[in-house]
């Protein structure tokens, strides 16, 4: 990989003011921040060390100390301030802020607006990106964030999405995230002794519990019984099945219709889900799944006796 002199120049011009504000930073950390190897940072630093102002006596060079892998800049010459952000930098940050805002229902949403105005004032670019926020933010988010930080256990009543019943559970919250417009919580579930993912809109209640009741032993997931591969033919009308379930898809073969192989997964859930796509998803195997879906469809058909 050969890097152009221009890219290197750009990085060097950014390195000096960054060093100035992060005196004594390690080369390892610099490499991480700038997304290059330590070797590259080292050779950048050697190069910068030789640059300066006309005259080029030690007084006019960029003055830098380098000891045991830690760097200090004592005289940056005229490079004491960072460069202006370019269009792509500023637009990526503005979109990030919009995303952040769309996940919040608290005061952070307002702060983000103020911040965006400040950024725009100092850097006026047309922003080609628009983030449309229409997710329903749960008011449980802040409580759960706090519980994650404090490692509090939670007692919840939860409406299961895969079994159509509500359960009481004792959980240790681990990670919150938004996906497909829903907010999810990944947690250690003491009740079922495993990691589980919960959807926030299915919480019936939540309260802080005594963490001592939890024994969080992240034992390797029980190896799922090796099922025969689940294979589906998904027509293009049912594309969003693929888009919404990327996480469980093992393999895709595009064609007139799409051949999909799934990772082993709860077949009850899968059968229920496939029903909703009618003829646009066909089960190739296992046979048991195909039969289950047909049986369910027959039972549903019984509910509508009058229609043809």
């Amino acid at each position, binding site marked *: 990989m050969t890097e152009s002199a221009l890219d290197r120049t750009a990085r060097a011009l950014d390195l000096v003011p960054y060093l100035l504000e992060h005196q004594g930073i390690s080369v390892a950390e610099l490499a991480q921040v700038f997304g290059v190897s330590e070797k590259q940072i080292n050779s950048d630093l050697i190069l910068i060390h030789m640059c300066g102002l006309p005259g*080029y006596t030690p007084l006019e060079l960029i003055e830098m100390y380098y000891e045991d892998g830690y760097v200090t800049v004592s005289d940056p010459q005229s490079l004491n301030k960072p460069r202006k952000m370019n269009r792509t930098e500023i637009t990526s940050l503005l979109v990030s802020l919009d995303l952040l805002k769309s996940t919040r229902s608290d005061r952070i949403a307002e702060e983000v607006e103020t911040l965006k105005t400040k950024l725009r004032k100092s850097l006026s670019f047309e922003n080609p990106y628009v983030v449309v926020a229409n997710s329903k933010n749960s008011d449980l988010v802040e409580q759960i964030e706090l519980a994650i930080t404090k490692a509090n256990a939670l007692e919840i009543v939860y409406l299961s999405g895969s079994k159509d019943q509500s359960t009481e559970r004792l959980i240790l919250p681990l990670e919150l995230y938004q996906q497909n417009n829903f907010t999810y919580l990944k947690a250690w579930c003491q009740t079922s002794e495993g990691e589980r993912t919960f959807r926030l809109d299915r919480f019936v209640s939540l309260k802080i519990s005594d963490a001592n009741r939890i024994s969080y032993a992240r034992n390797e997931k029980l190896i799922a019984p090796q099922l025969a591969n689940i294979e589906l033919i998904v027509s293009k009308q049912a594309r969003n099945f693929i888009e919404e379930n990327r996480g469980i898809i093992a393999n895709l073969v595009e064609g007139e219709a799409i051949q999909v192989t799934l990772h082993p997964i709860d077949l009850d859930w899968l059968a229920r889900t496939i029903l909703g796509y009618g003829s646009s998803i066909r089960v190739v195997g296992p046979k048991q799944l195909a039969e289950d879906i047909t049986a369910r469809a027959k039972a549903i058909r019984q509910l509508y006796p009058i229609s043809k």
Partner: protein
Amino acid sequence: MSDRKTERLINLTLALLATKRYLKKSEILTNVQGYEGSQDAKERMFERDKDDLRSLGIEIEVGDLDVFFEDEPGYRIPQKSYELNVPDLTGRELALLSVASNFWNDSILAPNAQSGIRKLQSLGIPASLDFEFRMKYRFENPSELLEQISKAILQKSRISFAYDSASLKTRHLEPYRIVFWNSYWYLIGMDIDRKAIRLFKLSRFQGSVEISKKKNEFNIPTDFDVSQHLPKEDVEIIRTAVVEIRKDSGALFRRRGKQIAEGVEFDTYEIDYENERAFLREILWHGENIRLVEPQALKEQLLILIDGILT
């Protein structure tokens, strides 16, 4: 070789930044380290270097010196145009920005967001993160097309691309905005063939995007509002269905709706929904525990789905 060029470019930037007055070309070629060879070679080198620095977004001002130097122009980089300046940025805001920029993970926008953050972190503002922020965002990674498309939007050039829909066709578009909506990336713009605003999912683009060589081929209407053009079935049009839910089941469904009658085997509920297809999937997910009563049109669609499985 590349070392020497990099060194020269840095030296040139430093010199032009440090000077208050314009530097004559002859001064630069003599004093700035790295210009070697014949006079011609030096001058060509300098011309290329100027172009290179400008391509990095660095503004090099060209000014007339005084009358004594006649037609020899002078150069400098005005500090004001070079330096990043975000007045009143607080430590908390800087911390918010860092958190937000982490959303990109390893996607195509990550390097840009990271280098932007680095610059802000070089302003000497101590970041203070005094909030517990745990929410992450998982979304479809933006495709490599984003950069190309945003370039086309900014220079107002038309684009064409192959799009995977019921029929695979080449679309011709005046691109208006890239939209992030419901965890997916879309492009919205004026479909030239259909003479109407259309929305395209980026994940369904096939191959690359062709950008017209011309610029300023169109204008985005000043009152253009993305939210007006998102598919109606997915926004704010709320319809009401009547369903029967079997006793002791459909807990989630019950919670969303309003009970209007109690029966022996089934209870009757009114439930609001937005997206027809998503709603049908939810009903069918519950199998024989939920029976759709109204609306009739929706019921017909439900039966099409079921009969599709049974045939």
